[in-house]
């Protein structure tokens, strides 16, 4: 059995893993990141629309090789396809990039390597090495060899299908209402407006979720869908609804897919516990996906960065206990939890809204000038025109 010794082992080389490895390695920790796939970033499992504001926050510079398109804002389409436009000028800083996720993930992995981290691809984590009831590393299989990677700190960045958390005793079950099944085609030869990311809501478009059109450039867009499992009693609901929507929209129906992308995201509250002795969970593994948008990249990077910082503090104190790692819980919750909970409530309410109500919301927002788009501002505008629609939100309005 081959044995390797590190300070930190990061499981999973998505955005959360790479940001964690980068943060840990740049602070002088001997770090390794392992990835079960043979190539970082593929296959893509993502709509590829990200906000831009947070990149600066963790010291990442936009790169030409991973930005496909910069959008000015978003358009939200009601079930009757009346829409509102949320412009960057209106919404403060809500501009976004449509990225090439495979290139973006490789960019972040390069950043981790530049900071001094080791990276192994085609290396699968098989379980935790336990000593005296405490994890002290991971059993892994690299190509055809079983090996031990010993490290007092393990950062679980293994995504929606996280197993490291499970091994560490963090047992979680998602409700059907907190899971979205997703499918996307990268369509070439479509009529799309490259200035906007488009979102379509309602029972007919995407039950319990939304359908998106994220333009990658002139004539090319990611057209995808997320549908709630709660509202998907049948099989292949995501595909059925996506195909039906495309068929109804001739400007997209003429497109040809050059890439089919599938996956699932959690749209749940974050895990109550994201740490165990020697273990920190980041990103999708900690269920930090924004429940309203289904976006996971920003929170993965931010939590990964925090985990790397806490890893350093943990080494300085030579304390890898779950008690010490509360520092990680405290830091990421301080940064992200309020927004996640607020958007979870908003998602729960939206999921209950009828198409008629959604039509009224979009109608009430026509011509409204927002200084900054907040849930509260939206609710106030709707209340002014259709007070009955906001009844469910009354507690939020009072707050």
């Amino acid at each position, binding site marked *: 059995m081959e044995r390797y010794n590190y300070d930190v082992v990061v499981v999973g080389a998505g955005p959360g893993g790479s940001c964690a490895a980068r943060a840990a390695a740049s602070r002088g920790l001997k770090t390794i990141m392992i990835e079960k796939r043979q190539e970082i970033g593929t*296959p893509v*499992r993502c709509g590829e629309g990200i906000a831009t504001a947070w990149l600066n926050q963790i010291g990442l510079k936009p790169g030409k090789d991973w930005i496909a398109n910069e959008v000015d804002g978003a358009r939200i389409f009601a079930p009757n396809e009346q829409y509102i436009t949320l412009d960057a000028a209106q919404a403060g800083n809500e501009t976004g990039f449509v990225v090439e996720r495979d290139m973006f993930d490789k960019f972040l992995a390069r950043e981790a390597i530049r900071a001094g981290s080791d990276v192994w691809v085609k290396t*699968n984590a098989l379980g935790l090495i336990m000593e005296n009831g405490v994890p002290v590393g991971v059993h892994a299989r690299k190509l055809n060899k079983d090996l031990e990677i010993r490290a007092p700190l393990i950062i679980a960045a293994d*995504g*929606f*299908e*996280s*197993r490291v958390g*499970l091994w560490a005793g963090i047992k979680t*079950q*998602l*409700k*059907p209402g907190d*899971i979205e*099944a*997703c*499918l996307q085609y990268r369509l070439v030869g479509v009529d799309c407006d490259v200035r906007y990311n488009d979102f379509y809501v309602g029972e007919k478009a995407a039950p319990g979720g939304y359908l998106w059109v994220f333009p990658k450039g002139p004539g090319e867009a990611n057209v995808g869908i997320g549908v709630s*499992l709660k509202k*998907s*009693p*049948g*099989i*292949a*609901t*995501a*595909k059925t609804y996506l195909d039906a929507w495309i068929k109804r929209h001739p400007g997209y129906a003429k497109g040809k897919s050059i890439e*089919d*992308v*599938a*996956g*699932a995201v*959690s749209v749940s509250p974050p895990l109550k516990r994201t740490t165990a002795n020697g273990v920190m969970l980041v990103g999708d593994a900690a269920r930090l996906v924004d429940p309203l948008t289904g976006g996971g990249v920003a929170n993965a990077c931010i939590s990964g960065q925090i985990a790397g910082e806490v890893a350093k503090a943990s080494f300085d104190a030579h304390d890898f206990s779950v008690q010490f790692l509360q520092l990680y819980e405290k830091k990421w919750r301080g940064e992200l939890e309020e927004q996640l909970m607020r958007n979870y409530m908003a998602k729960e309410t939206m999921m209950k809204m009828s198409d008629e109500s959604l039509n009224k919301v979009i109608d009430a927002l026509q011509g409204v000038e927002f200084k900054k788009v907040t849930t509260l501002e939206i609710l106030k505008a709707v209340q002014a025109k259709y007070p009955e629609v906001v009844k469910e939100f009354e507690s939020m309005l009072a707050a």
Partner: protein
Amino acid sequence: MRQVDRDTCLHCAACVGTCPFDAITLFDMHIIFNDRCVDCAMCDRVCPVGAISPIPGTEKMKPKLRVPA
């Protein structure tokens, strides 16, 4: 027991993360079920392309019986 239509499967692991019983793993391009599967059919429902179905006559229990609320 469930079966995966390998011609339809996109290896996205939606079923792996959704399974309440840790009964599914994705190994390279293979979806593998272990004996913890109770035929709750959550994987059938989450699969974006409908690649998972019961093997007729092998279902351990009626679907929905142990699906978390």
